[in-house]
């Protein structure tokens, strides 16, 4: 994935100097292993800070709503789908955007690599093709990139950008025959009590920091329902009633919109698999309406349109 770095710099330099865009949104190299920082380039002399590797899992579509300038943005498959969602929801104009499409082989999961380091602290990580070399005090290990993909990337079926102005590399082969929902089916098969316990345990570590919400491109409401104070809908404590209310309601707001980009899980500081909720809703929308969010730019999402033939098995 590192090979995109030079292409991104070249494109940014060209677009800025030809005044095609005012700014470029990409990543710059992180200060700690497995992290990069979303970065706004405003002038050509900043272009060389742009960087790309397998730690660019934060969804850059999150930085687009309310922008008034002409902006170029680096977009993986999922980011591009979220750009489509933004376009459908009128959050940004297509003619403001210059999309640098990044055909993607998946981002890596920092948490799993950390777990396998068993408490040893990585001080340096360098990606080289299919390998990630990690070193720290008195150790060096090599991780296979493919083995440590983020769990959403491992089941991704839209690695190539669905909308773009130029591609940073040749399209990659899409993964075929992927079963996206074994975990959802496992939860569906639980008894009601079992499932309730599962949800409570899943959410127990939540500290209500809202990193999941804020890393999500879909969460652009001017005031989130948890921040409403007149009336206050949701309690602010870390009691399971309050945390579950937050996570359930948030998940429902994602139905038919979530692209499973995995930013929420990546951002969570306490390692909660929040995608367990959104994936269930993704599955429902797919089964009911055959719809995948953000894949077709001119197709209205099923939950904001009505067709007389829409299935209604949930009305009893």
């Amino acid at each position, binding site marked *: 994935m590192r090979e995109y770095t030079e292409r991104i710099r070249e494109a940014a330099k060209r677009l800025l100097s030809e005044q095609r865009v005012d700014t470029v949104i990409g990543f710059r190299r992180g*200060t700690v292993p497995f992290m990069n920082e979303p970065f706004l380039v405003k002038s050509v002399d900043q272009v060389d800070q742009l960087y790309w590797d397998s730690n660019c899992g934060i969804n850059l579509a999150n*930085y687009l709503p309310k922008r008034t300038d002409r902006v170029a943005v680096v977009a993986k498959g999922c980011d591009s789908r979220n750009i489509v969602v933004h376009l459908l929801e009128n959050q940004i104009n297509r003619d403001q955007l210059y999309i640098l499409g990044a055909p993607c082989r998946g981002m890596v999961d920092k948490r799993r690599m950390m777990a396998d380091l068993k408490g040893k*602290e990585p001080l340096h990580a360098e990606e080289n093709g299919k390998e990630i070399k990690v070193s720290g005090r008195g150790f060096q290990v090599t991780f296979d990139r493919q083995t440590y993909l983020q769990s959403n990337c491992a089941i991704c079926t839209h690695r190539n950008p669905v909308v773009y102005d130029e591609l940073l590399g040749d399209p990659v082969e899409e993964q075929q025959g992927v079963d996206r929902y074994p975990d959802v089916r496992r939860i569906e098969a639980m008894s009601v009590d079992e499932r309730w316990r599962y949800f409570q345990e899943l959410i127990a570590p939540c500290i209500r920091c809202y*990193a999941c919400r804020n890393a999500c491109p879909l969460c652009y409401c001017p005031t989130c329902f948890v921040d409403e104070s007149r009336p206050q809908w949701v309690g602010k404590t870390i009691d399971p009633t309050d945390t579950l209310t937050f996570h359930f309601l948030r998940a429902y707001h994602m139905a038919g919109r979530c692209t499973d980009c995995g930013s929420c899980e990546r951002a969570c500081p*306490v390692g909660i698999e929040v995608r367990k909720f959104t994936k269930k809703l993704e599955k429902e929308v797919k089964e009911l309406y055959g719809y995948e969010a953000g894949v077709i730019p001119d197709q209205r999402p099923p939950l904001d349109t009505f067709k007389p033939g829409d299935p209604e098995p949930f009305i009893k």
Partner: protein
Amino acid sequence: MSDIYISRGKFPEITGQLMARYRVYAPVLKGEYHEFAEIEKTEEADLGYQNTRLSPKGLFHPHAERMFEYSLVKDDPQAGILKEAPKDFSPRVVLGIRPCDAKAFQLDDVNFDTTAYQDPWWVRRRQTTTLIGLACNEPCGTCFCTSLGTGPFDTAGLDVLLVDTGEGYTAQVLTQKGKDVVGITSGWESVSRAVSEKMEGLRKSAEDSLGRQFDFDPIKQKDMLELFNASFWDEVQFACINCGTCTFLCPTCWCFDIQDEVWGDKGDRIRLWDSCMFPLFTFHGSGHNPRNQKLQRVRQRFMHKLKYYPDKYHNGAACVGCGRCVKFCPVNIDIREVVRRMSATCVCPA
């Protein structure tokens, strides 16, 4: 009291002796990370840990705490009268706390325990808690305590400092509370010269590994408005998603909100952690928000820690360099970089 020593094999006995007299909180591995929790068995305490994901501030300033309770029953003569919710102030020991986290409580004292105002629960918890620290032999790559006036072997905020010397632990007793706690334990030996030398070597190598990562002093000298209006905030804030990770993980972020929750005819007054990253934080009843932009919120957090606090209390920065925010910020905003920018003599556009 001179330093004492106990072999690793005998240490669980010390923990057990403490548990017989105190509530003992120690680093416990829960899921994929450690947190301070009350232990029921000596083996739950994992002193081989690096640091907890959440700072131990919650032991003194809980995330969500029922302060008062009240009744709203119409005929109840006590209706509407706030009564203190029951709290446990029995003596406790925090075992294995890192020197930086203990130092953080001292920095927070200026907020909760002043001559004008005393937060009764913070103060009582501070009084009834003994802090047995554990020196950091191997600080993390994200640590920078030595650059902000504390260090991996700093005794400032502690009652006792333990050092893991491999085959055992040395203990340096620092306060009367520390003396009392150590006094109820037995099995200690005197420190041999070899152990003492080893301990000194560990201290030196830990401090050397941290080095001095930036010079904080220029920030103190600088004009507050010059920093406030500096152009670099625009770049610092771009990536920020305004979540509460940094503030909630931070040992010195003390801000809170107070809310009433009513259920039927009973009510609770609850104190909750708040975060300057949240739009609701300074939202006025009038509908006006003086910090309605992300830039203003991001700037507030760093200015509070690194400029307003030092200017007001002449007490160093409100940061102990534990590095939690550096490690867990989802978008890699690194406070060390921000300090470097704030302290740079020329505030150049990057």
